[in-house]
């Protein structure tokens, strides 16, 4: 209910601002909705949205799985941490644009280049978060598992993974928002479809309603995924914690 109210407030502010600024710079909500419906009925909206979502899914999955594995290793093995740390610092501070442009130069304007570039941007934050989580693992529970001779897989699943879950969730959440932002840049620079491409077109034509139609639909999809996937996962991972009053 409160969320709905907050959304209504957002619409109201937008509408009022549109009245002041004028339709060319900031179209009113109905004008944007009209474009949305037109794009949706032609099928273009779903095509571009689908292309973007596919890239996000692939790059996100890739970065999360590889990043988590590396982060876990660096948290557990001192040598890996020492060796990996300079690379990590480099990756963390490398601007997204540089990675994307280099990927396109080296691998051509291909899907692989785009997805790899997006994944590489997300990778270091996943590593850092999971390394922190691994460092915070409770040694006394490791000892318990070892004394009771728990097989490695069982210990990992029931002792280690639940401790990492909050870190994985945090990394997924921050990572998703990072990937959302970067995927559009990658599409703008070197892909013939996707929300980023459409926004590029809208920018060249100074077509604000179209720009807003695509970005808001995109934002809505992000919101839905956040509520339907990320938040339930967090809730499940934290279900054993006594609830805050």
């Amino acid at each position, binding site marked *: 209910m409160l969320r709905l109210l907050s959304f209504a407030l957002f619409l109201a502010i937008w509408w009022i601002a549109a009245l002041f600024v004028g339709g060319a710079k900031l179209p009113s909500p109905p004008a944007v909705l009209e474009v949305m419906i037109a794009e949706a009925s032609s099928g273009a909206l779903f095509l571009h949205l689908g292309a973007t979502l596919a890239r996000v899914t692939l790059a996100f999955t890739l970065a999360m799985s590889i990043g988590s594995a590396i982060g876990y290793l660096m948290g557990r093995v001192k040598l890996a941490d020492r060796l990996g740390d300079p690379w990590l610092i480099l990756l963390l501070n490398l601007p997204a644009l540089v990675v994307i442009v280099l990927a396109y130069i080296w691998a051509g304007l291909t899907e692989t280049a785009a997805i790899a570039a997006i994944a590489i941007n997300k990778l270091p934050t996943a590593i850092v978060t999971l390394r922190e989580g691994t460092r915070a693992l409770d040694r*006394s529970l490791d*000892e318990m598992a070892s004394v009771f001779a728990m097989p490695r897989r069982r210990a990992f699943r029931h002792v280690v993974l639940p401790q990492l879950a909050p870190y994985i969730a945090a990394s997924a959440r921050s990572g998703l928002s990072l990937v959302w932002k970067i995927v559009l840049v990658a599409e703008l620079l070197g892909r013939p479809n996707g929300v980023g491409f459409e926004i590029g077109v809208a920018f060249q034509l100074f077509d604000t309603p179209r720009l807003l139609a695509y970005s808001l639909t995109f934002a809505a999809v992000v919101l839905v995924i956040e509520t339907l996937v990320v938040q339930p996962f967090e809730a499940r991972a934290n279900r054993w914690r006594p609830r805050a009053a």
Partner: protein
Amino acid sequence: MRLEVEITGKTFTSAAGGTHEVLAPVKFALQSGEVGVLIGPSGCGKSTMLRIILGLDRDFAGRVARPPEARIGMVFQEPRLLPWRSVEQNVRLAAPDISDAKLSELFRILELEAHRSHFPGELSLGLARRVALARAFAVEPDLLVLDEPLASLDDALAGRLRDEIATLVASRPIMTLLVTHSLDDAIRLGDRLFFLSPRPARIVQELPITIPRAARSEAEIAAIRTELARRIQAEQDDIHAGRDVS
């Protein structure tokens, strides 16, 4: 089955670079069906000794021989339960082969039936300790290690849990190693008591109790306690006398 402990020394290097001796040479053995009790002042190195015996700490001089196939059940000083798993899951994860009937029986003895599906965070310390006991017994251990399992519980509860431990230990021929500073627990549960010196720990006295555990009456327990107190006093007098001479 037999546990042989022959530690010739254990030192550790502190962050400041100094070397500290934690354990002096310590040697003892334990047979199946025996309850050995380690009694010593806080910080004397008991926990270090346990970690070595359990194989958690391999950086020591000497040897620990226990049959490689021996199953270990352990009750740590803090319960060390998995907070994200229910009471029942905590036990089952350590003892996946336990039958439903056995588990129910164990929960009945330890009065945990009502808490099967609770998470450890919802339990009192006393209950959590009972879950830790249930877990240790559920694996049907050959070597049971109890590290101050009754510390910080009120007398009534500690007494009941002690009786439960005695019942469970009597039900199977296992080697049990109990660490405590309660003389009372030691006399009521132990077959052989090992008194440890302050750090670096060594065994200053080894005292067998010949009366079977079940047959120890209150009067006999009191008699053993008096005898122990006398011996400990004598020991301390010796130490003081020794110091005076040097």
